[in-house]
């Protein structure tokens, strides 16, 4: 037996010996909240509150105002070079900035030399103010949303779920994708527990929340 195989079988045998005769584990009861029963309007309000709580910038726009909202944000932050995944709609990217499309894998130096990245997201979780990326539509590969110093993220209101179990349930359809949970700009409290926003990941997170017809009608019904 090779050394590697010996280690594996020794560990497995040690585990079996250790638990031999142990009582069966109690059944796992999942009587914690699985679904958020609140209205979508309340959920959206909470999402905005949580984003602001950890110092992300957040704006709410209607679909037709999205392009100009992105352009305004780029203008405000002085963005000249904007990284974008290949499938971000052309109408999202402002004409006055240089758009670096990740067509043939931008180099790390190119990403590092950019001013911001523009992405969509897979879903968001209101209770924790979390945006989830999974490399799906309009998100690109992970390095894109990591290396640039500012992250402008477009979230549609119907992508916003209430609580963590709802998010995990949706992600479990394709768990093999590379998944990133983003809850605010990167931060550290390592020095005297004073919070510093912005360490290695983007130092600024700008969320553009797009009102979707679904949420709009729900809100009207209340």
């Amino acid at each position, binding site marked *: 037996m090779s050394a590697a195989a010996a*280690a594996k079988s020794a560990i497995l045998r040690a585990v*079996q010996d250790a638990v031999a005769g*142990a009582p069966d*584990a109690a059944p796992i009861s999942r*009587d*914690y909240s699985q679904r958020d029963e609140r209205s979508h309007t309340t959920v959206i309000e909470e999402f905005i509150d949580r984003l602001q709580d950890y110092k992300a910038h957040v704006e709410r726009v209607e679909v037709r105002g999205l392009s100009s909202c992105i352009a305004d944000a780029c203008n405000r932050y002085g963005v000249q070079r904007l990284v974008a995944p290949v499938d971000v709609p052309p109408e999202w990217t402002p004409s006055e900035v240089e758009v670096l499309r990740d067509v043939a894998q931008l180099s790390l130096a190119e990403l*590092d030399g950019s001013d911001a990245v523009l992405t969509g997201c897979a879903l968001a979780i209101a209770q924790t103010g979390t945006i989830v990326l999974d490399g799906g539509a309009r998100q690109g590969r992970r390095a894109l949303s990591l290396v640039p110093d500012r992250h402008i993220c477009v979230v549609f209101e119907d992508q916003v779920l209430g609580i963590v179990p709802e998010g*995990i349930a949706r992600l479990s359809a394709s768990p093999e994708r590379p998944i990133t949970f983003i809850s605010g700009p990167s931060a550290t409290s390592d*020095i005297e527990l004073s919070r510093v926003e912005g360490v*290695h990941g983007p130092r600024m997170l700008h969320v553009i929340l797009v009102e979707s017809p679904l949420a709009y009608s729900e809100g009207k019904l209340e």
Partner: protein
Amino acid sequence: MAATPARGRSLPVLPAFPKAVKIALADTQLRRNLAKATTTIRAKRARVVEELADWEELRAAGAAIKDETLRHLDHYLLQLEEAVTRAGGRVHWARNAVEANTIIARLVRDTGAERVVKVKSLTTDEIRLNDALASVGITAVETDLAELIIQLAHEPSSHILVPAIHKNRSEIRDLFRRTIATGQDLSDEPKALAGAARAYLRKQFLSAQVAISGANVAVAETGTVGVVESEGNGRMCLTLPRTLITVMGIEKVLPTFRDLEVFLQLLPRSSTGERMNPYTSLWTGVTPGDGPEAFHLVLLDNGRTNVLADEVGRQTLRCIRCSACLNICPVYARTGGHAYGSVYPGPIGAILTPQLLGLERAKTLPYASSLCGACYEVCPVKINIPDVLLRLRGQVGASAGQWNPEAMTMRQLAAIFSSPTRYERAQRMARYGQRLFVRDGVINRLPGPLSGWSQARDLQPLPAQSFRDWWRERRQKTGGA
């Protein structure tokens, strides 16, 4: 049988807690830093835990999921190996630190790299990976801010979560000026200090070929591995280098992807007192065109199967390394982590370390507690730390033999307490004898073999009249009945 051949008598014994603690308690700067840090995190945790109406249900589920995993750990480890392999990763098994370090050093060498970037990982501290890599000419650069600080200062960590909790801003500024920011006019503002670390580490991230991480979770069902962090150094290491090597204790596996819904709620709220930590990365093997091209997962035993074998002690393996028990502990909040002499300090360290290393190497640690039980109350996976402490104390007592002072004293006390006559006689003798030891209304030093007990405890002197004496006197006065 233990799968840890490296365990043996020749290994060094940790310094005794009662001795080490004296150094820590004399350091007033350390005590100020600790008091501020532990009170702050404690309050934040309490606030965000309060927000969740189903916190107790989540704790119960967390404990139950871990118990199920541990009961069938062999099955879940094999399932994890299969899933990771299917997703393009490679799994390695290491019985102990030496095996793990040898595997990792070989994997790094195979890439030709001489430098690796590291995500903060207690498991790699446990196996002293950085020293092992250095001995074969590989430099490991810590990228978590606090880990970088203590690496540059050549000091051990003092807290699971905020390892540089013992250092204040001016000490860190002076350190950076000497090391990574020489010749720079650096202020002691945390923002400026974090900025200096960012500039230094960015160069490291963008050029690194190999990264080494720990893991907070690994899902047997899907092969998905997860790291939870705040600064983004984790994402940098997990995403940019071509090769990723992850080391994890075998107890970190979870059965299903769905189980993440429990632990991604329990961990951040218990750990940093946040509703969610800034970044969580979940990856499954390798994804073409996104992230590392090679992924290795090293599964480490290193004493864990010994812990698993004890019916009371095995619950220790539920631990998700959140550090809530450190922050709540009245002992830790005053002594800090160094006094425990181990990678795992605080209440969890007091039970985990002696079980991982063997009780003979850390037999004072089970006594580093007042048994107040606060650690059990905050534990997100309901580890009954006081129960395990008592279990270990019992084992220390039993191994000391029947002629050691504690066992002899206990036998005498048992004899005294079992007879009213002997009990009263002993009380009278003690009341008379204690006069020599009472100072300012307390007894703070006992004679002979009892002196060890009174080293860290004050004793209330016996009152002039006992309850039994008072009762007899009252009956005599009132004429009985």
